[in-house]
């Protein structure tokens, strides 16, 4: 299958996306941010629809929108008495509704929107591949620079505050990185299934590894593995790539669960 240039690009994209989603997924699982990931990914639909309507690159618009929603969730979630899950519910339904309203108002682009809902990694061009890798490098750099401080916040927020760590800023940064990761992941599995890459490899890794270094490495490897294997299986079996990648990741989780229980 790798004799085709588009498949070579798709494989590189799948590997890169799997690595970033697996890496950030470590914190999504550790800090129980799965619902935040759902919220941001669905909210990004609003940005993508806006991008399609205004003629700006939809992923860039989705990214800006996702980051804005992430910062909104971080800010309102900290200041209000409502729980963060409630705040996410408000933001995500509002942003997604905006996306669907824009899709119904515009003409001719709902089909394009569907490509972002379900992913279309086979259509990644050379320039977009570079863009994906630049975004992936930004996420990886942000995560690497703050990794242990983020680990400390995950361990105990108040303790981290007492030792001078800016918990609010670290939270906001993590959500921004999550929004960027969602935008990257959408290209492979789509808005509706990006959660599979954000949560499942890291959850599988958590079943195997008791130390953060091993867990992070395994989560990254499983993310990349699901991306590459899912792409290959989809090619062989003529299935939708996004759904096959998600199914591979989920199958890995249940196999692990069975092995760890036996």
């Amino acid at each position: 299958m790798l004799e085709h240039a588009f498949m070579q690009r798709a494989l590189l994209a799948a590997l890169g996306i799997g690595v970033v989603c697996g890496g950030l997924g470590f914190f999504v699982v550790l800090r129980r941010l799965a619902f935040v990931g759902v919220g941001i990914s669905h909210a990004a639909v609003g940005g993508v629809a806006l991008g399609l309507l205004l003629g700006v690159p939809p992923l860039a618009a989705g990214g800006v929108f996702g980051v804005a929603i992430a910062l909104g969730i971080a800010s309102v979630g900290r200041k209000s008495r409502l729980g963060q899950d409630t705040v996410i519910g408000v933001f995500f339904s509002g942003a997604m509704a905006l996306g669907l309203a824009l899709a119904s108002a515009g003409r001719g682009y709902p089909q394009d929107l569907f490509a972002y809902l379900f992913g279309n990694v086979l259509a990644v061009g050379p320039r977009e591949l570079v863009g994906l890798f630049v975004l992936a490098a930004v996420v990886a750099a942000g995560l690497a620079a703050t990794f242990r401080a983020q680990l400390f916040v995950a361990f105990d927020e108040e303790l981290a505050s007492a030792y001078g760590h800016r918990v609010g800023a670290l939270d906001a940064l993590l959500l921004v990185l999550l929004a960027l990761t969602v935008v990257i992941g959408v290209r492979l599995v789509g808005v509706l299934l990006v959660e599979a890459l954000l949560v499942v490899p890291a959850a599988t890794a958590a079943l195997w590894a008791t130390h953060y270094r091993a867990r992070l490495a395994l989560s990254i490897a499983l993310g990349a593995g699901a991306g590459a294997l899912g792409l290959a299986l989809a090619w062989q079996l003529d299935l939708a790539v996004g759904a096959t990648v998600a199914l591979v990741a989920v199958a890995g989780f249940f196999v692990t669960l069975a092995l760890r229980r036996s």
Partner: protein
Amino acid sequence: MTEAVVRIAGVTVAREGRVVLEEIRFDVGAGAFVGVCGPNGAGKTTLLRAILGLVPLAAGRIDVLGRPAAERARSGNGIGYVPQRHAFPPDFPAYALDVVRLGRLHQREGRAREQRAAEEALARVGIAELAARPVGRLSGGEQRRVTLAQALCASSKLLILDEPTVGLDLPAEQEFYALVRSLRDELGLAVIAVSHDLLALAGAADHLVCINRRMHVHGQPEDVIHSHALREAYSCEFDFLAGEIAHHEGRTHAHRHDPDAR
């Protein structure tokens, strides 16, 4: 006269329009072990959070190691903090040594020095052999020692303990306070401990401060525990059949605190 490690001067804290601490005033010198007691909701934890610089003051001033508490909080330096907690997250992916090292992360002094300080701190609290054990799998007493080691790793000048023995049985509680006292003697640490367990605290501290929104009484534990002002603070009578306080030989009078007399 040596400068106070902590100086609390006429501190008032209000939350949502309600005064939770009023006119609190006492000093803690190097090598002193001060116990803060009071009934539930008396403002004990708020007082510790104010010393840590994590809550704004409505009036008064707190200096920690010669600097305003809020300024110290931004750097994270100078304190070791053991927060109120029942247990570590059971699946937290870190070993005891990693958690202790996090206490020194804000000092950004390099991996080797951080590692050495953490190993020394674990040895000081007598659990060097647990360094490579997952923290979530340690017993309650061992977890408490890990947090104490983390606090020591962060600072060898001031130790702040919030309900440090909650969830421990009596022998483990006595062992914990004996360890804190020996560390205080060895390192010349100033210690401030908050506890709802009046007798345990009275047995460990050199000086007791009893608060219930305002300061009701302060002095040596034997005197405080038999004072009328203590009963007033708790709004109840005590029966101290088992209330022998072992380590104090000297005796001075407890001071009933009257801010208006100043």
